[in-house]
């Protein structure tokens, strides 16, 4: 007879390894054939299992699992992970932290055909940063990639951001694995639109720059909860500039492809690549500012260099 304590001890032995394979799949059948046994194996081992993938793929897994689907947390990644920057804190760490004594098993599909070229760099950086965020944690995070519909460049990046790759049914170590290179490559220079309006602020202008951004965003068509979220996010970014970014900064705002785009530029340098993605201890007062921005925005792009940092957020109209 195996007791709960025995199982805990068994897990303690293998707990320290983090596994992060990419799965290259060609069609729905191959997807189902791999995912359903992967999820069932986790359930059989007593591991908490979550699946965060785009809606149609979620349906494949749900119907493949039948009644077992009730034991799995199922999330539509196009919603939960719309902004790739919030997937680590809000999906992966949230699930892992909710089960502190167990090894967790997660299917995470943050890259799908239809992700825009503006979103993709943040997707690739997210995949890379999972390796840093989960080093030494008891978790398996499997990331499916649609081999037939995604660009060759995207699949090449997946070989850099995953230590192992499963293709054609076989799992191999990726000899290209180098996640830091992907973080660096997509640390792209960001240039505000020519028609952006700008506001320069220091500590004394924190309320003014917030009012400016809310007023501009409202004129550009943002309203309701989204406008309130923009106000909160602007307060956090401008405060970061005052506290960590040389005491002052500039805020730029414009619209682009049905979204309000707002960015804050300052002279600081962001050293910690996991800033805004590492949930702080519950009793800690600071450390949630950039995470708030990731939570409320549809997309966050970031550029940091020795002479300054730009954080840009997109909110859909």
């Amino acid at each position: 007879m195996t007791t709960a304590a025995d199982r805990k001890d068994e897990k303690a032995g293998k707990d320290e390894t983090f596994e992060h394979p990419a799965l290259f799949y060609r069609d729905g059948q191959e997807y189902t054939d791999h995912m359903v046994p992967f999820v069932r194996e986790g359930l059989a081992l007593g591991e908490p299992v979550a699946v965060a993938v785009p809606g149609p793929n979620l349906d494949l897994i749900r119907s493949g699992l039948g009644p077992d689907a009730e034991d799995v947390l199922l999330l539509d990644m196009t919603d939960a992970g719309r902004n790739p920057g919030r997937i680590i804190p809000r999906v992966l760490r949230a699930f892992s932290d909710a089960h502190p004594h167990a090894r967790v098993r997660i299917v995470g599909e943050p890259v799908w055909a239809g992700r825009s070229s503006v979103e993709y760099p943040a997707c690739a950086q997210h995949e890379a940063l999972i390796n840093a965020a989960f080093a030494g944690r008891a978790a398996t995070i499997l990331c499916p990639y649609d081999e037939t519909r995604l660009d060759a460049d995207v699949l090449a990046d997946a070989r850099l951001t995953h230590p192992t790759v499963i293709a054609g049914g076989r799992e191999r170590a990726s000899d290209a694995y180098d996640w830091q290179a992907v973080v660096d490559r997509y640390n792209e220079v960001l240039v505000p639109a020519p028609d952006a309006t700008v506001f320069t602020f220091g500590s004394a202008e924190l309320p003014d720059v917030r009012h400016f951004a809310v007023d501009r965003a409202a004129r550009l068509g943002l309203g309701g909860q989204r406008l309130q979220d923009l106000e909160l996010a602007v307060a956090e970014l401008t405060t970061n500039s005052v506290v960590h970014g040389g005491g002052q900064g500039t805020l730029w705002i414009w619209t682009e492809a049905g979204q309000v785009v707002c960015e804050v530029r300052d002279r600081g340098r962001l050293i910690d690549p996991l800033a805004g993605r590492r949930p702080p201890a519950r009793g800690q007062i600071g450390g949630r500012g950039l995470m708030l921005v990731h939570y409320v925005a549809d997309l966050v792009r970031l550029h940091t260099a020795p002479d300054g940092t730009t954080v840009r957020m997109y909110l859909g109209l």
Partner: protein
Amino acid sequence: MEGARDVRKPAPAHDGAVLEVSPLSDRAGIRVSGEIGVTTRPSWEDALAELARRHADVSYVELSRVGFVDVAGVSALAVTAMNLPGGRVVVECPPPQLSRVLALFWPALSGIEVAPR
């Protein structure tokens, strides 16, 4: 006098945001007006520490005259409520950011009750 500071006084006007804190006359707690942000956070945190020291069963935080509170401001309130030995804090008429930040970072936090505007 350099260095001396009375937290009950508004933060200096040249620092942008201003915060005033006064005790409620009819029940245990404080009335706050102004903005809760990085420049006024020391006053806010001092006021919350004082509230926690005097806390018995229910303490009230009246925020109808607060126009804005940032994430760390809400966090300070949530952490204060979390660390109370018992009872609860009733937050009255807070600006909309407060419920939003509580929902995002402290869902199902007991010890805090929000009475909306």
